[in-house]
């Protein structure tokens, strides 16, 4: 079976960035490195303004991922659905490229008659179950997010419950922005267990600015560090899904 790895950034925010680089550009950069960027916009009673909405969709679009705007109370279901859907999209991309190699033309799954798609789908399903997954969660802790953080924590624990039911390995890391001193702060280093979040999350303080771009950039470099650290520790050559959609 394919032993690749799927790498995702999950950005949870409630509005528009107001400091630093353009997050849409950073998302495009992530995609070039084979990392998918998904965005969840959290609303309460208020509505996210047009500008925030456009940015959320833009980040996901250029990051090759999925975006969704939800009310805080639906967050748990959405977080796991978005992660799973993005994972399936990446796998489908890989499978489609394999198909093109086998069939020799610009064939994708949609070009196959429905009868033949079933078998391909079984491969996609199998991969979704067994592939290793790295999810970096990036949480907006600007002032307006303050009363939503408890819900975010619940949703992340729920995500971990869903993903650990799979056969494949999972690695999570959590960043918040803005941080105490810098634009972004690492809350949880790469770990297979998200449960340790419970204690850290309640001590979070919220800040005023929303430096989405710089935060995404820091998240990207965290993937790099992880990779180089791994290669130092062991010499098993890891293959990544290279996204070139």
């Amino acid at each position, binding site marked *: 079976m394919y032993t690749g790895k799927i790498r995702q950034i999950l950005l949870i925010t409630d509005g528009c960035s107001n400091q630093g680089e353009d997050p849409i550009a950073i998302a495009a950069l992530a995609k070039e490195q084979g990392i998918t960027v998904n965005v969840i916009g959290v609303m309460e009673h208020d509505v996210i303004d047009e500008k925030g909405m456009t940015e959320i*969709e833009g980040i*996901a*679009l250029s990051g*090759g*991922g*999925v*975006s*969704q*705007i939800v009310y805080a109370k639906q967050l*748990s*279901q959405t977080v796991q*659905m*978005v992660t*799973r*859907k993005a994972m*399936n*999209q990446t796998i*489908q*991309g890989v499978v*489609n490229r394999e198909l093109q190699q086998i069939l020799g033309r610009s064939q*994708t*799954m*949609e070009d196959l*008659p*429905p*009868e033949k*798609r*079933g078998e*391909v*789908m*079984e491969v*996609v*399903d199998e991969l979704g*179950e067994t592939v290793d997954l790295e999810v970096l969660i990036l949480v907006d802790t600007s002032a307006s997010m303050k009363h939503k953080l408890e819900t975010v924590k619940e949703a992340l624990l*729920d995500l971990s*419950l*869903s*993903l*650990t*039911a*799979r*056969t494949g390995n999972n690695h999570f890391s959590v960043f918040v922005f803005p941080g105490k001193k810098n634009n972004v702060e690492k809350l949880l280093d790469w770990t297979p267990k998200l449960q340790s979040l419970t204690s850290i999350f309640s001590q979070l303080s919220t800040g005023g600015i929303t430096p989405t771009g710089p935060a995404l950039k820091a998240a990207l470099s965290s993937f790099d560090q992880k990779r180089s650290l791994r290669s130092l520790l062991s010499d098993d050559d890891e293959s990544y899904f290279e996204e070139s*959609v």
Partner: protein
Amino acid sequence: MMMNHTLKSQYKVIPGTVITGKWHTQKYTIVKELGFGANGVVYLAKHNESFAALKMSDNGLSITSEVNVLKSFAKVQGSASLGPSLLDVDDWQTSRGLISFYVMEYIQGPDLLSFLQQKGQAWMPVLFLQLLNDLDKLHNNGWVFGDLKPENLIVGGPPPKIRCIDVGGTTMQGRAIKEFTEFYDRGYWGLGSRRAESSYDLFAVAMIMINSAYPKRFNKTTGGITQLRGAIRERPELRPYEAVIVKALQGHYTSANQMRAELLNCLSDHPGKSRINANTFKTQKTAQGQKNPHPMTRRHYRKSKKKRGWMEFFTIAMVAAVLYSLYIFLKL
């Protein structure tokens, strides 16, 4: 390659639209929308003068995945009731691109909770025995239904027969559950993992039984077995089944058949007790409802008929219960 970037862009089709398949060139006329979910929209469609349900989604993957499940059900012998039978799979070329759809048997009837509200709680054990029977077949074939909830359970017939309609959550055993609804998910209540096991479905069955006494559901407070057991004890109509429900919630049943046998047991063990319960329930209602023996007072013009209907219905329920136990007895 084109990919969907949002989950919300569901395709809406106006009634009267004729959908022609790209591969099999069959024509379907859309009559109305039956329902929609995360994975697409289901329409009532007319094909060669007969009705069928047509599910379409801009996510071709989920369509293919569901078709796989339905096909595998079709291979199981005597499994007519596991899910709707599959009639056609195809793509529809629209101005917005290719949309995958599949066509299945149209199962007509109220959903489980509406049925119980109309016909009375006495139907509850009957329908749950049927459901457990179907689930047992499903589990024996290596599947777990996953997203089991009243909205996905339709009571077809006559004679009334419970049917599962949405196979979007159906997962191979041992994998991670594909789709679920929080209230019926054991992970949400802190009572187990999201791995596809038969006990995952049985938890959902127990939650649906609780749901039948709490049509509006309730929110998680403390979660865990304490809150759920409290909820069961507050409703007299659930008391007779408390032992079975709690056991299923805690994942103590290894098969649907085992749960079914115990449910049947608690019906036959205390026939007097449960009848007394039913009677007191009825008299309370009568006192409140101006001598109307029927708890649902919406249809005033059928009052007298309803009274006879009730008696008839109780006799039938008893006969059905006796036949069922006989059937089980012979099977053993």
